[in-house]
């Protein structure tokens, strides 16, 4: 229902202050998590996840990806795909 309402109002703005609140809270969690007495790998996994969520929030709400056509989504996602590819290509260098 809420989805239909958002589509009807083409220029309806997202709740920017709520997005700001989430970004703020997630940043605090990120800084806090590095001091937790848990294995380094878990901290790293948590940080990557939190950073990805924050980056996605900025792209989807602030950069209005939410209201864009599929072609813009593809343009936005291509660098991320290529980065994963680059990581996979460089991992053998570590061995």
């Amino acid at each position, binding site marked *: 229902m809420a989805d239909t309402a958002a589509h009807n109002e083409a*220029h309806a*703005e997202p709740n*920017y*202050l709520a*997005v*700001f609140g989430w*970004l*703020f809270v997630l*940043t605090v969690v*990120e*800084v806090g*998590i*590095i001091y937790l007495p848990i294995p380094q790998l878990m*901290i*790293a996994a948590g*940080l*990557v996840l*939190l*950073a990805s969520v*924050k*980056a996605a929030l*900025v*792209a989807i709400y*602030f*950069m*209005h990806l939410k209201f864009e*056509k*599929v*072609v*813009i989504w593809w*343009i*936005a996602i*291509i*660098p*991320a795909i*290529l*980065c994963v590819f*680059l*990581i996979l290509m*460089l991992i053998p*260098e*570590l061995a």
Partner: protein
Amino acid sequence: MSEAATLHREPAETPLTPESWGKLGMWIFLCGDAMTFGTLIVTFGIMRIAAADWPVPAEVLGINLTAFMTFLLICSSVTMVLALSGIKRGNMQEFRKFMLLTILGGAFFLACQAYEWTHLIHQGVTISANKFGSPVFGDTFYIMTGFHGMHVFGGVVYLIVMLVGGLTGRITQANASVVEIAGLYWHFVDLVWILIFTFVYLL
């Protein structure tokens, strides 16, 4: 099917036809820029794992200051969307106010970064040497934060042009889309900082 008929046919609207060519252009630019940042971050990660004596970033870099810098950029992203929201509704006063706040946020970020760099150089972390361990640490640190800082500087100049356009009446509600395009660039710089803050400072 004459030749003239094919020549004069209007190009059909395809899924590739954007609402705004300027916006599409900015997205394509940001796509390329993201690849540059992505390459820098990934190669940094690989060199870091390969290095034996990598220092713990939180012990060398000031997390409190950079967390505050993250907060600054997030705030300036919010004021950017509020400035856009203002000009879209034709409220130029709101546009000018929030645009000025966005510019100040960016300038303050740069000031913090200048302070941070000066402090680190005094502590013995430079582009070629590092008192705390692997010299690649200083190398990658200055290249990544420097490349990002240049983007913030460029962004501040870009936003000043927008604000001046608003003051002189060249940018109004009618061409508010140029502000949206400038906003895309600014949010992208914020997004990249979120990643750099996580991967360089916290991880």
